[in-house]
């Protein structure tokens, strides 16, 4: 035997976090399992024993694309637990901050992750060679969203200005006013994005989704509303766990959410739009009409158009909020100095869909239990259902083409693994 040392000097990369296992028997699809490899991150566990005041900053670290969603859901849940009422300009500022996140997150997905699928490119780098204008628009939109987050949230990624009760510091009228030209430009770009997306070629496919989203009487939902579905569900958000449950499945480290006694459901832009399109402001509604969206979109590939309409909405809403902004007397509502052990939950609309938080506090204000249900885990079972239908329709494809088709089907729903599913490993057993 000989021993030797081999110099390699290889720069490792983080590989895809997903794999798809398909079992086909004859012309029947026996089983489809979307496996998520990412190890558990234990956020719910390490929130225990921490002050409730830390929850917005700790949970923001769960996602670099949608940290505001985690901050908003944690703030609302804890404020509900403490009986705090937060309204007026602070409420409006939170909505404005959320607009920034919707813009940057949706722009990223539309132009850098999703559009290459429709135009025949493996990724945005290749897309940029032939369509530099499209990628430039995407980056410009993303920058506008990030800038908004920076001004309101103090930082464009993992904002540091959010706290229980409101903000550490509220921006001045002039600081927000300075955002207007950039947001006006973003609104025009967003409308162009809707036209761009609507002109893409879409597979002629519709799925029978149960759409679930917040809905309220006033506006397109972000921070408030009841949980509604297109199959008649209407419950207050604190009853979320009575209606939905998370289940462990052996093949994935991500939990699957199901509606109790019913099965998979879909959250995110398609669901929000189906349940709230009548709440869209004029320019977003006009963009949706021009794109021919109708009231409900069941074709998952057309989610790129709906996402673009939501960018129009977020820009339009941000401009409205800028115009009506008057700084509050105090940047935050003071939490009660003492309180008894308590519990509270809340849902807000992350760019990818409903994000549920629940906290139990002891009388010293320390978190005893936390539960977080992210949109991707709520959608995972539904994504598996989409994939099963896709595989059933595509049995004649070779493995490489089928892998490509499955990756596209996953990206339709912008899950947290969106950027890594270009490396989806597909394991097909045919018998």
């Amino acid at each position: 035997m000989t021993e030797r040392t081999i110099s390699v000097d290889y720069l490792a990369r983080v590989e895809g976090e997903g794999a798809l296992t398909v079992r086909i028997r004859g012309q029947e699809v026996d089983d489809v399992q979307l496996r998520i490899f990412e190890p558990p991150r234990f956020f719910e566990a390490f929130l225990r024993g921490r002050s409730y005041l830390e929850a917005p900053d700790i949970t923001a670290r769960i996602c670099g694309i949608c940290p505001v969603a985690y901050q908003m859901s944690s703030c609302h849940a804890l404020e509900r637990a403490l009986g705090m009422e937060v309204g007026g300009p602070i409420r409006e500022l939170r909505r404005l901050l959320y607009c920034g996140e919707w813009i940057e997150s949706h722009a990223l997905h539309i132009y850098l992750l999703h559009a290459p699928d429709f135009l025949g490119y493996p990724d945005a780098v290749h897309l940029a060679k032939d369509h530099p204008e499209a990628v430039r628009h995407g980056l410009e939109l993303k920058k506008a969203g990030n800038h908004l987050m920076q001004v309101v949230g103090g930082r464009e990624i993992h904002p540091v200005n959010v706290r229980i009760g409101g903000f550490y510091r509220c921006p001045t009228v002039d600081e927000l006013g300075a955002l207007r030209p950039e947001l006006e430009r973003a609104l025009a770009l967003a409308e162009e994005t809707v036209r761009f997306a609507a002109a893409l070629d879409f597979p002629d496919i519709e799925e029978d989704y149960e759409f679930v989203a917040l809905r309220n009487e006033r506006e397109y939902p972000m921070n408030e509303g009841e949980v509604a579905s297109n199959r008649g569900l209407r419950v207050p958000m604190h009853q979320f766990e009575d209606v939905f449950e998370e289940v462990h499945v052996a093949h994935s480290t991500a939990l699957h959410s199901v509606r109790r006694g019913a099965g998979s459901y879909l959250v995110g832009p398609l669901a929000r739009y189906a349940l709230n399109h009548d709440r869209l402001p004029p320019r977003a509604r006009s963009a949706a009409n021009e794109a021919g969206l109708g009231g409900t979109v069941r074709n998952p590939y057309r989610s790129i158009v709906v996402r673009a309409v939501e960018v129009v909405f977020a820009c339009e809403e941000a401009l409205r909020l800028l115009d009506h902004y008057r700084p509050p007397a105090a940047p935050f509502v003071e939490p009660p100095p003492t309180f008894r052990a308590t519990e509270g939950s809340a849902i807000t609309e992350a760019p990818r869909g409903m994000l549920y938080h629940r906290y139990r506090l002891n009388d010293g204000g320390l978190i005893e239990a936390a539960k977080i249900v992210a949109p991707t885990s709520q959608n995972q079972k539904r994504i598996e259902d989409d994939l099963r239908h896709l595989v059933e329709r595509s049995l004649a494809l070779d493995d490489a083409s089928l892998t490509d088709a499955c990756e596209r089907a996953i990206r339709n729903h912008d899950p947290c693994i969106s950027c890594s599913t270009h490396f989806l490993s597909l394991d097909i057993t045919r018998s």
Partner: protein
Amino acid sequence: MHEEALLRDLLRKIDEVARENEALRVTRVRLWVGALSHLAEAHLAERWAMSTVGSIAEGSQLDVTFSGDPGDPRANRAVLESIDTVGPAGEP
């Protein structure tokens, strides 16, 4: 948080290099980890033992050099520096 995904990529590369060099086993792996890589030493060691089972690197020793320099251009990455292999008798 991305240890598992990173190790899968590393193991694929290790397997490729080992086979190119007609190695029978990989006995030691040297890895350089940047200061901003978000890789945790204990977690990496634990995952290594689990991830290598059944691979050509099963039972191998993982030597990790953690860089403390956030200014290094590779600070957010990990580099597979070298591997020790055992080959058949008479092989170079």
